[in-house]
């Protein structure tokens, strides 16, 4: 399956939706800091992998798909929910990369240069996420 970048999809996003994601993202980052300050870094660290904008993102996926189908004269309710489910399955696969990112930071940060650790962790995230997605999409897992 070919991965495509459709820049025209950005035109469909309303400024309100951007603002919602910005506010959610900012608030969760502040909350993670406040929790770490109150309960220590061990509890605060859990919130670095909190599904912060996931509900808003999945809901927007549903509404965009519904709108897309409505323009063609169909009721896209079921279709919207199916696409949101597929998006969620992708996020679940992405968690493998997220865990890899965290493991690199945890094990190497105290010993290595900060910049190098962040670059390596980001590469590990991309490789594990895309690699896992490709394996999931390969013939082995096709029904």
């Amino acid at each position, binding site marked *: *399956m070919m*991965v*495509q970048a459709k820049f025209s*999809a950005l035109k469909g*996003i309303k400024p309100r939706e951007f603002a919602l*994601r*910005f*506010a*959610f*993202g900012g608030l*969760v*980052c*502040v909350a*993670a*800091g406040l929790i770490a300050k109150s309960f220590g*870094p*061990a*509890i*605060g*660290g*859990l*919130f*670095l*992998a*909190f*599904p*912060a*904008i*996931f*509900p808003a*993102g*999945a*809901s927007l996926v549903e509404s965009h798909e519904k709108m897309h189908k409505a323009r063609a004269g169909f009721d896209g309710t079921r279709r*919207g*929910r199916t696409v*949101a*489910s*597929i*998006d*969620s*399955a*992708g*996020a*679940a*696969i*992405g968690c493998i*990369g*997220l*865990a890899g*990112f*965290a*493991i690199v*930071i*945890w*094990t190497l940060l*105290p010993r290595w240069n*900060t910049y190098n650790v*962040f670059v390596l962790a980001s590469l590990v*995230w991309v490789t594990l996420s895309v690699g896992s*997605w490709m394996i999931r999409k390969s013939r082995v897992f096709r029904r």
Partner: protein
Amino acid sequence: MQRCRGCQAHDREGAAGCLTGLAMPSEIAEFVIRFFVGGIVVSAFAVLAEIFRPKSFAGLFGAAPSIALATLGITIAHHGKTYAATEARSMVFGAIAFFCYASSVSWILMRVKPRVLPTTIALIPVWFAASFALWFVTSAITR
């Protein structure tokens, strides 16, 4: 200029080494920076999720390390590398919990097809249960 209270970067390198060397208490400055950097990074990953097709691939960005990328740099500047590494260790549990959460959302949306936003919010306790259970078990074993 007011000196930051409890700022390790300030202690090590003076005002020039402090990211928040502003004429305000360092904690407020830290949380203001967290909000804006967090909002920008989270929005950037949300844009990437909108651009890419198919949706299962775009979903990978739903589990991007956006909060970690936005906040770990600030954490290192204020509290040092060891503190950030402790947070990253807990982030591994958060990522596993995110996997459980995203998988359950995907499964329910595909099988039952309920409305997306209430479902994703109603299932957030899955993340809390999984992450805190993992943290508690690991803490008990390593104690």
